[in-house]
């Protein structure tokens, strides 16, 4: 049995524990440990994608207990892709933070590693209760990270974020209780089997459980009406943390898609219709939010919400062909939103007191390079040709033939253009006098460039990218293979 699959959980766990032991504030040592762990995650991510790519499932039984009695980790193309995506995002984010933002509070690096551990665990686990535990791991680390750097605005946004997520955890537990009560198991594959032959009286309870799961995952993914916490939390967080949080909404989407593909696909649909409409409403309201944003960080946060709406509507529309472009768009939007959060941080530093507020302010030191990066990032995130956002959106428009989706997606593109061109012209052109800000350092620019460069790369190798996405989608459309891999030949 290959042990690589547990490495994405163990590496950050070990690094996080080591970082907690380091109490003398030796920043170089801390940064080195953190970056080493992220680099190792990147390498392991590549190994795992390689391992999963032939279409085989790797099932890792923790403690060697047979499924469904023990907890299993399951590696398929989707989870491998998400683990790699996390690593690709985490490394530049940590590199950016290592330029000084990590010194604003104690234990930044330790929290960062535990956050990665929770995210990777949530992607890999094959057990619903274990998913809850990994959600809690990533949440408690994210509470600490969101508050990193202090300040009243951060504390206020953080308090709302924590309370909302605690209520969400309660709902998650109720859903798990109902699933256990009706099916007698919490192993995802086993739940998928049992859900097909539920006694008549239990189907309603089971539906309630799944609807509660949609609420919980919707809260994590920031779906209407549960997205109001996101703009405040993300815009007030340290740039590197906000960039890492770009993957957090995708954890919610991942869990939703996983449960949808595995458990709900073989039985009559439960709540997908509602998810479709909520996705569309999210998309529409995020447009208004982006247009009305008073800070660049808030505008980018609304772009995250926009991508969530786009994705959830696409995943729940019920078109099998939409899976592949949606996955492509998911990868693209995560990377670009991460890049834009880092860029917003650089802009705020370059303007000094004014920060990233969208008002006329002092000229930005090194603004030429930043404006160029902003231009590329804006084109990518809005979905204008020739960058990756365009390919993703065209794919979605082709595979989701619903007029309302077309209208909203195109309007969202237009709103994105207006919001970002307004932001860009205010920040870079409406300048008054000399700046008191700081010139962006080379390492910070490199971190932004790393993430931004992936968009042209994804466009350049667009066909290969779409084929990869198609391969992932193909595996998702066959939940039978997953069930068989986890439970062995014994189950049907």
């Amino acid at each position: 049995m290959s042990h690589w699959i547990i490495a994405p959980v163990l590496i950050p766990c070990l690094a996080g524990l080591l970082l907690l032991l380091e109490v003398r504030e030796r920043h170089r040592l801390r940064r080195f440990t953190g970056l080493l762990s992220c680099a190792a995650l990147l390498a392991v991510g590549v190994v795992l994608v390689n391992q999963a790519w032939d279409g085989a499932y790797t099932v890792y039984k923790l403690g060697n207990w047979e499924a469904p009695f023990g907890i299993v980790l399951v590696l398929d193309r989707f989870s491998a892709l998400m683990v790699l995506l996390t690593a690709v995002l985490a490394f530049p984010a940590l590199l950016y933070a290592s330029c000084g933002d990590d010194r604003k509070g104690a234990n930044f690096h330790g929290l960062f590693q535990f956050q990665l551990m929770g995210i990777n665990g949530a992607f890999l686990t094959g057990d619903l209760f274990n998913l809850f535990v990994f959600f809690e791991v990533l949440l408690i680390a994210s509470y600490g990270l969101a508050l990193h750097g202090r300040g009243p605005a951060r504390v206020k946004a953080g308090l709302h974020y924590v309370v909302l997520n605690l209520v969400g955890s309660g709902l998650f537990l109720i859903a798990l209780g109902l699933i256990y009560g009706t099916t007698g198991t919490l192993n995802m594959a086993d739940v998928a089997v049992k859900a097909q032959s539920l006694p008549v009286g239990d189907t309603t309870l089971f539906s309630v459980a799944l609807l509660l799961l949609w609420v919980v995952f919707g809260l994590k993914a920031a779906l209407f009406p549960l997205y109001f916490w996101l703009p405040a939390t993300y815009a007030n967080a340290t740039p590197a943390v906000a960039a890492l949080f770009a993957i957090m909404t995708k954890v919610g989407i991942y869990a939703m898609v996983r449960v949808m593909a595995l458990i709900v696909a073989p039985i009559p649909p439960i709540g997908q219709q509602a998810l479709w409409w909520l996705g569309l409403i999210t998309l529409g309201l995020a447009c208004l939010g982006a247009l009305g944003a008073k800070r660049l960080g808030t505008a980018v946060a609304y772009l995250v919400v926009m991508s969530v709406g786009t994705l959830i509507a696409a995943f729940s529309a019920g078109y099998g062909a939409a899976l592949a472009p949606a996955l492509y768009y998911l990868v693209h939007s995560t990377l670009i939103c991460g890049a834009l959060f880092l860029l917003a941080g650089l802009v705020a530093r370059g303007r000094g007191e004014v920060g990233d507020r969208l008002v006329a302010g002092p000229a930005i030191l090194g603004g030429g390079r930043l404006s160029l990066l902003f231009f590329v990032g804006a084109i990518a995130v809005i979905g204008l040709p020739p960058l990756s956002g365009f390919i993703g959106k065209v794919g979605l428009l082709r595979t989701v033939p619903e007029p309302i989706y077309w209208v909203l997606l195109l309007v969202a593109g237009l709103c994105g253009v207006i919001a970002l061109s307004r932001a860009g012209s205010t920040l870079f052109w409406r300048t008054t006098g000399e700046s008191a800000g700081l010139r962006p350092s080379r390492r910070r620019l490199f971190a932004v460039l790393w993430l931004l460069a992936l968009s042209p790369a994804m466009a350049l190798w667009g066909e290969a990218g779409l084929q990869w996405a198609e391969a992932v989608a193909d595996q998702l459309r066959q939940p039978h293979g997953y069930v068989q891999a986890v439970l062995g030949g014994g189950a049907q």
Partner: protein
Amino acid sequence: MELLVAIIIGVLVTSGVYLCLRARTFPVVMGLTLLSYGVNVFLFSMGGLKMDEVAVVGMSENPTDPLPQALVLTAIVIGFAMTAFLVVLALRSQGEHYTDHVDGRDDVAGRKDEGGEA
């Protein structure tokens, strides 16, 4: 006994939700605590309620389901840690804003908003 447990869960969750919707941090913390109690009892009862039975196979004719007990233990530990964190955060919020209003608003304005509640 099912009825009794159901009523207890209902009362806990109702008061928890009510307190969560208050505008001061202390009631919100209390509300979340009550909510998590309700959820824990709910989770505990999901394996079926049995009197005077042990949760070990072979020790009795009709053993209780041990899994919900393990789940609820995990949930209690996590819930406790989260509540502790929330208490610290609420104190921090009070220190930053000089008020225990959840939106960090001015104390006087906050009281006016709540009408006769104080």
